[in-house]
């Protein structure tokens, strides 16, 4: 069940209704049941993997003793990493193609959301190890934290510290919450269906056959892909966060106007925040601590390793190693050169400096995203080798679709500029009722008119 589907909206409405009318102590079980149903509707028996992960991770929490805290933490890390390795990396490394009539190993697929809930489990365990109070959540609470359906498929990766305390708070139907959540969902569907969905036929056509295209086409497709993935993933995050809000939960924000980043470092504080802050807290900080006596070298080493892991989190492919390392190298460079760069920028008027910086970051991210998208190094290299400034044979696919996507994009950009760092629903709340209603009506009509309604899943489900 995709998050952009009528079935999902009906499911969410039913869960929300039950959630609000049931007695308080039943709520958690209703939500847990909903999560189980949701997962099995998506991937059937793979629900057992989720249950296995929850049980083993919680088992480790129960066996936890302060004397051997480190052992238990490492045990948990080993378990979660092995689970990821078994499903996500071993088949890819061994080069086993997926096949529905092959051996058991060939028939299996990656359990949806594995990368996300495994990271939540590890984060929880490391927090437990680091914190002074060794309080362990109750089993139902922990299970809900691991399987909460709005975020189960592709995050935002939750932290126990912020999610768990919300579970036991009494939740009544609150008009403001529900409406804020629904606005977020509508906004997310708009981004996904009107922009990402209309761009994907074009980017698919070019990226799947890079050797058929040349010149500027490849650059256009690469930029389109950056926009597509932004709209796809931030749209997904809007729906996830909005759904949680409808149920009375606050999830971590995953995007903060990333197109306005002034540096690559800044970009990764604004893009997929729940993952980038996860690797910052649980990978980068410990690494930097270990290497702190080495000064700048230590920081750079820690940065590179962190972003290597960040890249490989997306999957087992050399392209993703390069994708991660490119970010690491760029951020290291920015760390080393920050003072000189500040001087250079100070010669320019602020608005011009910002604009140039935004564009440079966007170009860099677009170049690196080619590695995120390409199925193989060969494809990525083909993309680069066939690029030139030759404008003679520009391929645009269906121009109608691109026009629809551009129109949608203009709306999102305008809203991003106006709202700044504010949350979308807060921004909308401040507008006159006429504007709010215009937003509701126009976005629903544009979804019917130009939305790509029958498109498939979100890009981030595959990671």
């Amino acid at each position, binding site marked *: 069940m995709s998050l952009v589907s009528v079935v999902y909206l009906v499911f969410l409405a039913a869960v929300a209704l039950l959630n609000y009318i049931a007695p308080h102590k039943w709520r958690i079980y209703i939500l847990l049941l909903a999560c189980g149903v949701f997962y099995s509707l998506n991937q059937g028996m793979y629900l057992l993997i989720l249950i296995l992960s929850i049980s083993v991770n919680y088992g480790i929490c129960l066996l936890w003793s302060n004397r051997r805290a480190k052992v238990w933490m490492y045990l948990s890390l080993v378990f979660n990493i092995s689970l990821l390795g078994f499903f996500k990396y071993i088949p890819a490394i061994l080069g086993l193609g997926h096949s529905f009539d092959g051996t058991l190993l060939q028939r299996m697929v990656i359990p949806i959301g594995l990368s996300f809930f495994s990271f939540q489990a590890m984060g929880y365990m490391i927090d437990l190890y680091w914190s002074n109070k060794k309080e362990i959540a109750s089993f139902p609470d922990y299970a809900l934290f691991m399987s909460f359906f709005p975020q189960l498929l592709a995050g935002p990766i939750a932290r126990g510290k912020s999610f768990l305390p919300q579970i036991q708070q009494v939740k009544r139907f609150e008009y403001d919450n529900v409406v804020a959540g629904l606005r977020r969902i509508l906004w997310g569907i708009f981004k996904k269906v009107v922009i990402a969905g209309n761009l994907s036929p074009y980017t698919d056509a070019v990226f799947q056959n890079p050797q058929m295209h040349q010149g500027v086409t490849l650059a256009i497709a690469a930029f389109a892909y950056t926009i597509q993935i932004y709209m796809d993933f931030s749209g997904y995050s809007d729906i996830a966060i909005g759904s949680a809000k409808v149920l009375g939960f606050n999830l971590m924000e995953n995007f903060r106007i990333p197109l306005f980043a002034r540096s690559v470092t800044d970009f990764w504080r604004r893009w997929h925040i729940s993952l980038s802050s996860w690797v910052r807290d649980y990978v980068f900080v410990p690494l930097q601590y270990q290497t702190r006596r080495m000064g700048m070298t230590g920081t750079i080493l820690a940065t590179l390793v962190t972003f290597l892991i960040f890249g490989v989190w997306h999957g087992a492919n050399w392209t993703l190693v390069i994708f991660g390392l490119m970010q690491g190298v760029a951020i290291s460079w920015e760390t080393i050169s920050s003072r000189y760069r500040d001087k250079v920028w100070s010669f320019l008027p602020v608005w011009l400096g910002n604009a140039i910086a935004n564009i440079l970051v966007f170009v860099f991210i677009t170049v690196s995203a080619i590695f995120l998208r390409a199925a193989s190094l060969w494809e990525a290299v083909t993309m680069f080798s066939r690029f030139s400034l030759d404008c003679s044979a520009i391929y645009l696919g269906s121009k109608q679709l691109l*026009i629809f996507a551009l129109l949608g994009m203009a709306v999102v950009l305008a809203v991003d500029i106006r709202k700044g760092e504010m949350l979308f629903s807060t921004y909308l709340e401040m507008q006159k009722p006429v504007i709010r209603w215009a937003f509701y009506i126009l976005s629903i009509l544009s979804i019917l008119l*130009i939305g790509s309604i029958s498109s498939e899943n979100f890009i981030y489900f595959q990671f």
Partner: protein
Amino acid sequence: MKRFLLKSLLLFATIFVCDYVIGTALQQMFFANNSGAPGYVLNHIAEKQYDAYVMGASGAQRGYVPAVFEQELGLSVFNTGEAGTNIFHNYAALQLILQHSKPKLIIWDITNADYYYRHDASKTGMITPYHHNRRIRQLLYDIQPLNKLWLLSRIYPYNHKVLSIVGTYIFKPQPGVAGDKGYHALNEVVNPSTLRNPMGQFYEEQQSASKRSPEMAAKDMLIRKYFFAFIELCRVNNIRLVAFHCPKAPLNELLASTPLLSEELVLQLEQHHIPLYSIMPNTYPEMRDLNLYYDFSHLNHSGATVYSSIIAKHLQSELQDAR
């Protein structure tokens, strides 16, 4: 809760009204265009009668020249080929034709995509405007049960078409948009060096018919339902149905001699007494020349002319046999 429900109701009512107004306007503009241009082929054949129709996807649209058939067979012919369509479109087209007349002949450009489900088979944009037809509505529901919901919207049938509908309504269709009675010529010649891994494409397509995942196999049932319904519809209405399979660019002996039709599909045609002609370059030497091809799977105009005259010969003998 009450305030929420009231406002939601108000929102739905407003949406309903807007949807009705915009949807009705789009409907008027859409059906005003019966030129037969790509995207409006069904409008044309729902109104105009012909003795025979070519049916198929882009291969039909680019490879079957009605002028050749008209000359050789003495029948009026229209080419209903539309890019990216499959048997669903043929079925809908035939339903619309049968509303006004019973044609003598259907020239069917057949591929595996008419018998095996492809990921884009559920794209129904060409058919949705005709959901008022009872049988076409049933087809739409079968393809996507949620269409029961979506078709409550009057805009949805014209989803993604707003620019072309409004554009052609304002700037009136140019003469010649329908090509030569639905046939659209391609003039370039294939350059084998720019073809992307044609053999890979060939094997992939060949294997996709033999290796079906359980999900795909389930969806194959749907497409076959309409495959057989189409054949049955021709039979009960006494329409002569003749199937043809168009060659791929013969870059080597294997491509020149192997039709990309699964054995099962060929067997089904045989069992239903549908004559099938695979025009393979190794048995039709006039199709060997690479200059007749536009790309891996399409003919150019010279190719289409040669190919159509081969087909016309077969059709002549088929029609004589029938008499």
